[in-house]
């Protein structure tokens, strides 16, 4: 049976973007999209364009900041970085995610193990 890639869960893209920026520091949209693809390997399908919509939302919420800079290839690109509010939000979201996945793990565990 072939393994079909999962569609991304609603709301989880925000968490992925925040985590990526925490791990890699300031990064442009293409970099963020590539990083999420790499991490997801073949298990996750991300439409790269939706990353930009997610970035717009996060900037509006004040969780990330944005500024235009020169990239390593001397190309003008918009770099995003985590703000303090974003760091706090990431912590809260991570805890929430771990709690949910813990619950899901317990629910999905085979009985008797």
């Amino acid at each position, binding site marked *: 049976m072939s393994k079909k890639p999962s569609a991304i869960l609603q709301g989880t893209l925000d968490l992925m973007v925040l985590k990526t920026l925490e791990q890699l520091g300031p990064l*442009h*949209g*293409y970099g963020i*999209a*590539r990083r999420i693809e790499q991490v997801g390997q073949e298990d996750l399908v991300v*439409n*790269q*364009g*939706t990353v*930009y*919509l997610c970035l*717009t*939302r996060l*900037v*509006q*919420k*004040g969780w990330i900041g944005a500024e235009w800079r020169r*990239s390593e*290839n001397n*190309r*003008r*690109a*918009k770099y995003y970085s985590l703000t303090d509010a974003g760091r706090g939000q990431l912590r809260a979201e991570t805890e929430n995610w771990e709690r949910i996945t813990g619950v899901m793990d317990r629910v999905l565990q085979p009985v008797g193990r």
Partner: protein
Amino acid sequence: MATFLRVAMARVRGFLRPGDGEHDFDEELEAHLAMATEDKIRQGLSPREARRRARIELGNLTQLREAGRETRGLPWIGSSWLDVKLGLRMLRKSWGLTLVAGLAMTVVIGLAAVASDVLAAFGGTDLPLDEGDRVVALEIRDLEASETLGASPRELERWSSEMRSLDDVGAFRTVERNLRRGESSEPGRPAEVVGVAEMSAAGFRLARVAPVLGRPILPDDQLPSADPVLVIGQEAWRSRFASDPEILGRRVRLDDTVHTIVGVMPEGFGFPVFHRFWTPLREGATSLAGADDLLVFARLGAGATIEQAQAELRGVGRVDRRWEAADAPAQEVALRVVPYATAFTGDVPPWMANLILVSFAVLLVPPCINVALLVYARTVTRQGEIAARCALGASRFHIVSQLFLEILVLAVVAGVIALGAARLVVRVIVADLEARGGSIPFWMEVGSSPRTALLVGVLAVVAALLAGAVPALQATGARMQLGLRSLGGQTPVRLGPVWTSMIVLQVACSFALLPTSVEMTWGTLRSGLLGPGFPAEEYVTARLETGAFGLAEGPAADPTDGAARIADRQAELVRRLTAEPTVASATLSSSVPSEEPWVRIETEEAEPTGGASPALEIGGDRVVRVNHVDEAFFDVFEVPRLTGRAFGPADFEPGGNAVLVNRSFVFDVLGGGNPLGRRIRYRSRDAEAAAAETRPDRWFEIVGVVADLEKHAGEQTVYHPAPPGHTPAVSLALRVRSDPTAAADALREVAWRLDPALRVSRVQTLDSIYRQHAVGNYVGAAGLVAATLSVLLLSAAGIYALMSFTVNRRRKEIGIRAALGARPWRLVAAIFGRAMGRIGLVALGGVAVALLVGYFVPVTDLGGWEVPGVIPSAAAFIGLVALLALLGPARRSLRVDPVQELREG
């Protein structure tokens, strides 16, 4: 919350400056594509292929940009704006619906706006003064006649000294005076009649408004021995004295008394009502007519409530009237303390005002149902379009919103027009009031009530909900499936029984209401259009008030002496005027014809035929016009006597009880019977009635009948004989020989030479008075015509909708009949016969209702005029309108292509 606010702010910024975000977003996507392409080239792809793959991975750019726009801005506003634009396009396309629905909504919302403006003006009780809500009026209310009586100086004195819960108790009366700017009483100096408030010094204390110059009236000014002083308003200072900085101490004449100006009150100050001139109310002074005419005002004392003041006033009581002590029956009166403005505008409780406004929302329902019907009909015919939009992903909510917005746009436009029309009507009313020498009280704001704008907005939304959303919900509900089928070219939709019944009801209403409406409109317009029926332009009228002659200014004055001198002045003036070459004849009456007051009377019924009982039978109350006229009146106006006798010299003696009535009185009040010897008496017992000897205990006998002076007005009038000097204020009418202006100049000159204290005001031709009245009537008639027209148009539109549905539903049948060779007129008869038959039945029902309305509600009682044959004419007219509405669908039915219909079948 902070995050929500940040997002909201960012979105508002994005909405206001969409270009910035869009440019940024595009540049970012371009950078993304460039970086992705470079990566792929490095992986060995050709530049073209690399670019292609990069674009695929990024996604659909157009959709992405659209989603970006929605994320950055306020997309629902943008889409609503699109809906509004679409709504405007649809309204232009369905111009018939727009016209009919717009007119109906404008009429109802306009009426509501006028009502709201008037209520806002009359309903406010807070005066724009310091603690204005604590200013009160002390009223003497005649409970039987539901009238407010004036207070006497002795009552003022008693209340002022004994009421503990009130401060600054004072009173005023309004008098007219000839104002001359200078001490000289020589002829040639221009005089102007002005309204003066004779007011207690307490009025200025109560108002707590400081003069801009000088001082207000002080208690010492009220002493009988004090020098006469005058306080003027800033407007009068500017317009009459060119803002003279030396105004204080300047001496002016009010009638024959020299007054010294001692103060100027600031702009806008109009206490007690709309006054710009104030003189002291002398202690114990009675009015010249001997009537008690003071209005008492006060401020609630510290901590006192209006209820406490009311209780205290009842305890203190009032002073007996002079004429009450005679043989008059005792009056049942109540003493009331009311908010000051209420004494002038009447007591309109807030719940009643709100009820009136809510009733307009209810009034909006019938036209909205009609509009809803049309919208429904149109929505059903747009099933194909709606179904296509649903198929493309539009939700039902979105489609209903779209249809709601379409009607909301229309309702808002109707509301704006209605608001403008309401402002215009209110302005006309105010202009009319000012033309009659009146003004608006200082606390009233006319024409700019925010509540009215809010009401219009709410009514527009209600109208859009009723007429737009409801039919849209219905049309997009169960019928959506039919609509989907209609995509395939089928239109099997039909008008449900509810909607059909509504059309039928609407048509019935038209048949029932149109005759009454025509009679009401004709009654309103008739006198204006046909004119008075005599050469009104040859008459100059004026208000003539005889000055005080220094009499009746103190308690010791002898009113009999004053009355004799007034009579002498009036008679002499008439004598001198008739000697003028420009004047043919002159007459005195208490009112100008057509401006006589309406007074409630009751008639003594004729004895029952054959009955021997002499017992009185009192007929119902009627309201009629009353005038007191001199001997020359009917000759000057060339009013012929129809029956009975004219006034004889004995009738002019005190105690006479003869009256004349006009033709309309005989027909409308007495039912056309023999009027001679019949008796009438008055139901009104106010101060004016007492002074005019029309007290309720007196019976008057009809001794003759004259023709209607104004031939087309049909107003019932009673004429009393009144010798010169009957009242100090009378109307003078001159029949001029040639130029009315020369006669008017002669009038002023003769009056001035006779006595500088004779006040001549409102000099104008009778014709101009009639024209002023006609303007008001035209406004009323325009409203009536608009309402009738909208009902008629709605009916026609309803019939049109019904017939259009019939044609659509029976296309196949029409095709078969046409294919079998049916003649066109037979085809039309077959298709519409049943529906028209039903409408015909309904029309008969409507006509029956019209007959019943005509029988039970005499239109003449409501100001209408009976028009012979109005019911069949109106029915024929509506029938014609219905036939015209039928033309379009009939033509369409004849154009049905049999081949096409049979092929589709």
